[in-house]
């Protein structure tokens, strides 16, 4: 049990290595290895989650190589980490099950490289969540980023350029973060999170610490696509293969948000992000701008994936707002939204890939008649849409509820209105798609003749992950409040909730 914090990332790293070697010979074997690794990691996460909940939130610590922290690097599985890791590995498993057919269509011949990259991304992300060391976080951040670049660059024609752009942004962002870590080390003499949290209170006024905080937040903000650093996101998500988008869109940016939250709650002293420097408020305001920006631009899009990309910019703003509110309810809302949005967006990207498989298109006007051809997939899509708009009992409703309550508590009425306006806008751009897919192709003379490539429902390997994700969206929604009470309330305790 105490091994779990180490088992999760190492199993994924191991799976990557083996899958890479095996993939030289057989794609299918690589797939199985990758899947096995992800499943193992997921099971470990679940066990870890259980242990943490039963242990009343007490963290499980594992010192790597038995080197004692703060010299050594330790991995910490506490409520927040367990929450994130379970989510990441779950998405990983789902996307890996979903992958083969989609990859065969969109990136044939490259599977031997894709599967190990996927597990590598997962390894990097879980590592980021589990590590108890700010420098180690950078290491895993880069691992995940590099693997992600590989996954994203193999998409459509615009993919390499878009990914290179992401790389440039990401490199600078990572660089800022690293610089911040360096400043922190100079000031505090340690990079271990727990140690920092003990030493920083005395150093709050020190310039080095202030600079470090700003640099780290800006760096992570770039990776999180915080407005206005989001410029890389739309092109990347639009051109990526469905599998990559399905894996990266739900979790990559979220983990950077997690990192900011971790810094906020557990590393820097309480009040640092709010009183000493108006970091939280700034994040809140740029997030509000990002929410409006993303929602409005999403309305104009004709490509399904681009619409989802702009929608993601908006939704990430919700998480940012949660951070910005800096009160327990708001933070809970933001954290909940990490989970909820990951599930919803993952589901929607996966469905996009399924439609592309059967209908050969990602343009919304050409989605006419999909509802008839793929009824069950479209039921899942409707669930996803209801969740994005925030209709109970889906997950989207509850994160909206907490965020709004947090905003009301803080008296942040503009942010309150922004959240409500954006859910109305979400309704507009998503219902457009719903309308398209359920239209009768015969009566619609405006549609170019679009024969389905292969008629029928999504294939089983895609169908089941989609269905499970849709069910999860509903189930997590219904159990959202339990998740809050069992996990999240402990997480936001430092805020004085």
């Amino acid at each position: 049990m105490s091994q779990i914090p180490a088992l999760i990332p190492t199993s994924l790293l191991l799976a990557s290595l083996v899958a890479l070697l095996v993939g030289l010979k057989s794609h299918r074997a690589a797939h199985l290895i990758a899947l096995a690794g992800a499943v193992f990691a997921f099971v470990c996460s679940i066990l870890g989650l259980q242990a943490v909940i039963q242990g009343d939130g007490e963290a499980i610590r594992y010192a790597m190589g038995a080197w004692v922290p703060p010299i050594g690097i330790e991995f910490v599985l506490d409520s927040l980490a367990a929450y994130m890791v379970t989510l990441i590995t779950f998405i990983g498993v789902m996307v890996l099950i979903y992958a083969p057919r989609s990859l065969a269509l969109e990136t044939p011949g490259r599977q031997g490289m894709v599967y190990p990259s996927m597990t590598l991304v997962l390894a990097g992300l879980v590592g980021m969540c589990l590590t108890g060391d700010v420098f180690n976080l950078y290491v895993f951040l880069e691992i995940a980023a590099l693997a992600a670049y590989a996954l994203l660059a193999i998409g459509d024609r615009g993919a390499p350029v878009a990914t290179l752009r992401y790389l440039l942004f990401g490199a600078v962002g990572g660089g800022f973060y690293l610089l911040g870590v360096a400043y922190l080390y100079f000031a505090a003499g340690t990079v271990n999170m727990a140690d920092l949290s003990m030493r920083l209170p005395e150093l709050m006024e020190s310039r080095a610490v202030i600079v470090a905080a700003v640099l780290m937040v800006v760096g992570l903000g770039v990776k999180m696509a915080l407005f206005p650093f989001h410029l890389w996101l739309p092109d990347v998500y639009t051109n990526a293969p469905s599998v990559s988008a399905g894996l990266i869109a739900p979790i990559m940016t979220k983990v950077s948000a997690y990192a900011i939250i971790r810094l906020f709650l557990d590393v820097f002293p309480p009040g640092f992000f709010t009183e000493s420097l108006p970091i939280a408020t700034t994040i809140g305001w740029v997030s509000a701008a990002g929410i409006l920006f993303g929602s409005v631009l999403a309305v104009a899009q004709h490509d399904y994936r681009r619409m989802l990309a702009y929608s993601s910019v908006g939704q990430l703003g919700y998480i940012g707002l949660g951070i910005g509110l800096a009160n327990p309810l708001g933070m809970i809302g933001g954290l909940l939204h990490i989970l909820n949005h990951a599930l919803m967006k993952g589901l929607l990207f996966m469905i996009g890939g399924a439609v592309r498989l059967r209908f050969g298109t990602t343009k919304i006007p050409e989605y006419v008649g999909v509802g008839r051809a793929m009824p069950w997939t479209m039921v899942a899509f409707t669930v996803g849409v209801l969740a994005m708009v925030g209709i109970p009992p889906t997950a989207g409703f509850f994160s909206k509820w907490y965020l709004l309550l947090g905003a009301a508590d803080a008296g942040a009425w503009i942010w309150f209105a922004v959240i409500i306006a954006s859910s109305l806008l979400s309704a507009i751009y998503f219902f457009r798609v719903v309308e398209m897919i359920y239209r009768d192709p015969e009566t619609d003379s405006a549609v170019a003749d679009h024969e389905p490539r292969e008629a029928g429902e999504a294939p089983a390997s895609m169908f089941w992950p989609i269905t499970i994700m849709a069910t999860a969206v509903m189930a997590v929604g219904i159990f959202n409040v339990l998740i809050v009470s069992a996990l999240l309330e402990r997480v936001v305790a430092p805020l004085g909730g």
Partner: protein
Amino acid sequence: MKLTIWHRLFGLALIGALSLELLGDRTTPVEVWDYPLFFALMGLFGCFILSLVAKGIVSPALDRPEDFYGPEDAEGDWTSQSPAARADARASSPATGTASDVSAETSGRPGAPTEPSNGGEG
């Protein structure tokens, strides 16, 4: 005007309603509706006033053709063909003669996936 039985019955009913005024307590009228015959007059003139306002003012100002917002083929069109069959008929009619029109209308889309509902009924 021919006085049918219906006319006579209606006239009797009117008289009967009026005669209800004669029954009942004779309290002094307080509000306007306590006055005798108030409700008869309200019925008669209320109807005139409402009709006048509706037909005389509202209608001329706000009337628009039924397809004002776009081709309103649905409102009022309750033929039992499903939209799919209708479209089929539309698609096949220019090319062939009347026989296939009839068959297109009644057969529905060939090989269509089993659609659980017939939109026109129920």
